[in-house]
């Protein structure tokens, strides 16, 4: 599943570790989500959406697969 996490993180000038700290996951997990290696669970997707104050479907796009 494609996502805009890397762009959103860059806009805030956060490192992967800093984003991981906000989301209660590791830097490796953030990297895995950004590169499409891992699709986040629904609770994590909601945490991401709340953190960036955006709807989930504006961050994740399953139609680009």
């Amino acid at each position, binding site marked *: 599943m494609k996502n805009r996490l*890397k762009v959103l993180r860059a806009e805030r000038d956060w490192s992967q*570790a800093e984003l*991981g*700290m906000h989301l*209660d*996951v*590791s*830097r*490796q*997990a953030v*990297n*895995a*989500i*950004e*590169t*499409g*290696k*891992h699709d*986040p*669970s629904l609770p*994590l997707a909601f945490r991401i959406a709340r953190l960036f104050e955006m709807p989930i479907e504006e961050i994740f796009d399953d139609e680009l697969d």
Partner: protein
Amino acid sequence: MPFDPQAPSEQDRSRTHALIWFGAACTLLSLVNRFLGMDNMMVVIAYGGTAGGLLQAALSRASDEYLRGLYNVGWRTMGTGVALYLMALFVFAAGDLSRQAGHWASSGTKPSDSMFDINGFLVDPISLCVILAILFYGGFAFAWLRDRFTTESSA
């Protein structure tokens, strides 16, 4: 979400990724020890690291969902190994039973020999544990490598 003072930090979670690879390296050392023998200090580290990695995978709160996904592949690989081993035992034992039943049906006596010696098929407990640990870490490493080769990279 309520504040949890014991909640693992991002550093704790990242450390678990490194520790699981340490466990994998220790498992390889354990395997080498089974064939070649090693210094006692190395044996202690090898078995300790192997056990620690598996305990971390099973119990640690610091593992995030991505790491747990990799663990799951490892657990499934280990479970498949156990199932195949037991299936092989079943097939050999069932074959032996069929042969004995055939012998009894044709001659009315039980054969004195056995085609399949179950004791010869069993490995010693320490080697079995090391093999199971290798299956877990092998599955974990396979999942990790599959991700590396099937997706784009990111800084």
